[in-house]
């Protein structure tokens, strides 16, 4: 039996959930179903949609929202947030080192070829010093829980994590629909996230910027799956939402085209991948980027958030070294554990993985979004064998992890209230002044019974995440 965050307590109901549990017991199922429907209408009307790539039917879909909140106690959260802060500090130190002195490679903490031959490694960055030496200003670290005590980090998402708009809108819809629940539970607020984000972005402005730096959000455009989030954040931050064609680089300074002429840009919160940022430096066919942007970046006239080349820490094989990385840079033991990981590039590990493939989850090292992975226990024999073939042909490309018994939270499904597996993505902001984390994050839930895949592109939903003061 997986750990259930409401029920798995020898004394009955776990304490953060007591009020919600009695509310669920007393609330008629029809009322809950109606409320769920209302929430859906709300989301659809304000246009919180996402696009699924390769989906011909509706190019805009809603992520299902579950009205039963996922709840953490303040004590649990404090431990989590300490662990997150530690992890992000180490990530920043690691990336700075990789593009600088390479102490960790020289000390043999992590194999050099794993870093230097990584497709996300950007040699350009070895000649660029970022303002304030921060690389990962925004991290969306995926956490899973397996029992009352144990949280694992699943992924670091140091590139361009998305989903924070759902964290904010989920809270908003819960406040609108169930104000009474917030009277009985002291839920820590999350709405200051956008203020924190703006403060973080301003703090990392280049030193040549004015006291009130011009911050913009660079989006690939309306056809991007996360476009709603881009416009939502720009709106809440009060910054311009720009596309590549709105920007122009002149004499190593980035400008945006406005109705009053060109205006200098100091900080770019970019939601465009590295490869598409600058056709002169990376993919020459990119229509999404800005020619000359990397030149301006190198000259220190613009800050990019997140920095270019942070993907090197997103690699799942590099991930497996995180405990060593934390020890190396901070001299501390990791507060949040890594999921035990077999690196298939190592022959012994590969042999083990092939032998136990029916028990393991095998992932591509560069994969994301739940694509290109095998969940051994859920796959049939033919699928497993086909995957094993790929694994043998290209072992460096894979890692394997045990199938974790992810914790479950009660969820409203067609049959009533039933346990469903969840994960958690808190958002960690690293500024030049300090690290900021709002209490909570995005809880994703696998709505299909028994499913462990929470990705929205694969039938996952979301929940409001509460940190309660008791």
């Amino acid at each position, binding site marked *: 039996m997986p750990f259930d965050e409401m029920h798995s307590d020898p004394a009955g109901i776990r304490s953060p959930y007591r009020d919600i549990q009695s509310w669920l017991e007393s609330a008629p199922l029809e009322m809950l179903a109606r409320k769920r429907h209302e929430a859906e209408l709300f989301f659809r*009307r304000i*246009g919180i949609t996402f696009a699924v790539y390769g989906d011909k039917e509706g190019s805009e879909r809603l992520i299902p929202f579950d009205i039963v909140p996922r709840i953490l106690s303040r004590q649990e959260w404090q431990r989590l947030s300490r662990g997150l802060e530690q992890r992000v500090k180490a990530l920043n130190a690691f990336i700075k080192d990789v593009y600088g002195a390479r102490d960790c490679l020289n000390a043999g903490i992590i194999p050099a070829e794993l870093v230097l031959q990584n497709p996300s490694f950007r040699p350009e960055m070895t000649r660029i010093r970022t303002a304030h030496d921060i690389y990962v200003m925004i991290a969306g670290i995926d956490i899973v829980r397996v029992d009352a005590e144990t949280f694992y980090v699943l992924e670091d998402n140091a590139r361009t994590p998305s989903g924070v708009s759902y964290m904010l809108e989920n809270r908003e819809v819960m406040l609108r629909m169930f104000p009474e629940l917030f009277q009985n539970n002291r839920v820590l607020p999350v709405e200051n996230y956008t203020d924190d984000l703006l403060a973080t972005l301003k703090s990392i402005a280049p030193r040549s910027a004015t006291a009130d730096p011009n911050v913009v959000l660079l989006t690939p455009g*309306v056809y991007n799956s996360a*476009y709603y989030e881009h416009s*939502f954040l720009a709106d809440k931050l009060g910054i311009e939402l*720009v*596309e590549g064609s*709105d920007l122009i680089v002149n004499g190593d300074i980035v400008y945006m*085209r*406005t109705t009053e002429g060109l205006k200098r840009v100091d900080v770019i919160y970019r939601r465009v991948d590295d490869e598409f940022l600058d056709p002169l430096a990376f993919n020459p066919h990119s229509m999404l980027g800005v020619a000359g942007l990397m030149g301006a970046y190198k000259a220190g006239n613009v800050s990019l958030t997140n920095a270019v080349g942070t993907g090197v820490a997103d690699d799942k094989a590099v991930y497996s070294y995180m405990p060593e990385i934390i020890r190396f840079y901070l001299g501390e033991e990791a507060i949040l554990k890594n999921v035990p990981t077999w690196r298939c590039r190592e022959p012994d590990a590969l042999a083990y993985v092939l032998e136990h493939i029916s028990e393991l989850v095998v992932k591509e090292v560069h994969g994301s979004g739940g694509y290109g992975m095998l969940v051994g226990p859920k796959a049939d024999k033919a699928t497993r064998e086909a995957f094993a073939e790929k694994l043998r042909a290209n072992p460096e490309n894979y890692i394997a992890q045990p199938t974790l018994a992810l914790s479950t939270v009660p969820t409203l499904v067609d049959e009533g209230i039933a346990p469903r597996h969840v994960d958690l993505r808190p958002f960690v902001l690293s500024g030049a002044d300090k690290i900021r984390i709002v209490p909570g994050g995005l809880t994703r839930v696998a709505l299909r019974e028994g499913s462990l895949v929470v990705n929205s592109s694969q039938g996952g939903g979301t929940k409001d995440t509460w940190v309660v003061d008791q």
Partner: protein
Amino acid sequence: MLSRTADNLFWLSRYIERAENLARILDVASRLANLPSAYAGTSNEWESAVATAACVDTFHDAFDEVTPENVIEFLAFSPTNPGSIRNCIETARHNARAVRTALTVEMWEIINSAWLELQSLSAERLRSGPELARFLAWVKEMTLRFDGIAYRTMLRNDAYYFSRLGFQIERADNTARILDVKYHVLLPQTEPVGGGLDYFQWAAVLRSVSALTSYNWIYRDSVKPWLVADFLILREEMPRSLACCYGNIVRFLDELAVSYGRQGDAQRLSRRVSSDLRNATIEGIFQGGLHEFISQFIVGNNHVAQAITKQFLT
């Protein structure tokens, strides 16, 4: 603000205004077409509708014959006509989505729900008479709400001025086109002895800009063609007259000049068009040729739109 944002706002308003104008044109055409021919005269209302919408060529590429069904299909629902009501709403929503941050929540909600509703409407059913009327009423309702919401909720800054400029430029263009297509029925010499036959045509012109009642209030007279022309061209109190539109265009461009601290061709050109209208008399216009006057106005209005684009939107 970003030039692209201003451009999107400007065109968003133009598409909304265009959708409303198309709805009115179709409404009036079906009203006239339903009259016995002794009252409506011999003109083909459906041809006029296509001409007023300025898409004669594209219509004939798509259809061989001007039938009510074809015109309704083309102007209201056709996915291939970029200027159909359906496409106006689609494009408006697309623009709105691209500039959500420049819109108020209420503006976005109205345009997004209109678009959602449009997805759920079945074009087959809408083509029938009563359903069509209801559809056109819905379009007018939606655009009025959008306009009202913009007026009531937007900050009075450049975003608002660009949005208003889009409405006014499109509205002036539409009024001018209606006059251009119908000018022959407004010329004094076509008034038949004993009068009356063209009454419905003149009334229709007024109705297509929702001005029949206000005409009565201004002139306290029966519908006379030169007064209709006077009303739609020169009367500043008539919100769809060319003079009123240009009074507003000059005002909004002046606001922009003040807030940006400089002015350019858009301001100069629009002031010229506006003063031409203010100095004109309806007698003078008829002497010089109503058709010539209108054609010249349409060209001038386009130049102002181009100047706005060049000065601010690119």
